[in-house]
């Protein structure tokens, strides 16, 4: 069982190794496998809990879709909004730290959503309370400090994708 | 068709913008007022320097230079984490 767990980590490591080396000579291809297996052996216990999920093609396609959506639409909107605020001479900001509920359980899901939130300008996860399933988000434009508004505005867009990828 | 002049001119336009941004970050680092402010500015400066280094590598036509950028990104993150831990906890190792 442990040996199978190596595979997803090894694939990730191998891709990084080859991309970073920038060459596909025999030397790199062979040594890349060695390095990948080594890294997988050392770290698979820490990283992988369910091999089936990690190797599923469907989840991978959802990850790609999410990446495309996130990197083009979500980021673009958020950037545009914040740039307007910075360049506006009056600087219309309305900041505050608000509770934001979420509905996922998996570690990776929680962290992916949190990182997505932080990476969109305008929202930063300050704290994560796993017991109450709440992010504390510093939001630059607090529309209303109640959980429903914050959930709609901050988390909802990412949660659907992330549930399909990691849950 | 050679793309070299086009690439060089694109890069030539970006370099002054980057330098201006660095100066602004630098002012924030000097002004502070708190430690997290400074670290945040150092952080942003270093991550932007990653781009700048790779772009300079292309500009100088030295394709082996940019390997540096990855290490810069890694250690900048580490620097953030060290400061965060310093502010948060009583012992750095605990």
């Amino acid at each position, binding site marked *: 069982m442990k040996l199978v767990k190596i595979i997803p980590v090894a694939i990730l490591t191998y891709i990084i190794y080859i991309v970073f080396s920038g060459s596909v000579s025999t030397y790199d291809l062979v040594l890349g496998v060695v390095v990948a297996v080594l890294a997988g052996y050392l770290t698979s216990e820490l990283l992988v809990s369910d091999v089936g999920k990690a190797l599923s093609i469907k989840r991978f396609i959802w990850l790609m879709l999410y990446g495309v959506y996130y990197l083009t639409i979500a980021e673009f909107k958020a950037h545009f909004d914040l740039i307007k605020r910075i360049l506006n001479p009056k600087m219309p900001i309305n900041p505050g730290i608000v509770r934001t509920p979420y509905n996922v359980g998996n570690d990776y899901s929680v962290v992916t959503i949190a990182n997505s939130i932080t990476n969109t300008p305008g929202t930063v996860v300050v704290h994560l309370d796993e017991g109450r399933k709440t992010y504390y988000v510093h939001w630059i434009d607090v529309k209303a400090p109640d959980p429903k508004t914050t959930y709609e505005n901050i988390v909802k867009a990412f949660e659907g994708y992330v549930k399909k990828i990691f849950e | 068709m050679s793309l070299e002049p086009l690439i060089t001119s694109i890069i030539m336009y970006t370099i002054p913008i980057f330098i201006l941004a660095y100066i602004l970050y630098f002012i924030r680092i000097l002004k502070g007022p708190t430690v997290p402010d400074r670290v945040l500015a150092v952080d942003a400066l270093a991550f932007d320097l990653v781009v700048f280094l790779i772009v300079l590598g292309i500009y*100088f*036509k*030295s*394709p*082996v*230079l940019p390997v540096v950028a990855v290490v810069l990104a890694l250690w900048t993150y580490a620097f953030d984490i060290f400061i965060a831990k310093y502010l948060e906890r009583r012992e750095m190792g605990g």
Partner: protein
Amino acid sequence: MSTELDIFLANLSLISLIAIIGVSLYGILARPNIVKKIIALTIFTDAANLLAILVGFRRPPSIPPVLLNLEPRATDIAEFSASAVDPLPQALVLTAVVIGMAVNMLIIFIALQVYRLYGTLDARKIRRLRG
């Protein structure tokens, strides 16, 4: 870019470097706190290393001392040695950086022990405590 401007800029950076050396020497010798002394020492060694690299630089367009052709002919090698910067100072500095790092780490450990024994890192107080 004109040559005069280049000379001015190179001299400006050299003088800044020398100023860094001076400031860090001041930090080592005159600041009382040992941590501050260590920070100044790291900057001092860095500046010395940068000086060495600067001595081995050559006027652009120059390339790093890495040959990009794995099966070079004589012309490739000639072209390479006509444009690459001096590799020897880089190798020396590589050695010097590691050596400086090792010594500084040991100094940090000693400073920690100083704090354990004296309860302070102020050089003046340490001298007074000895009595």
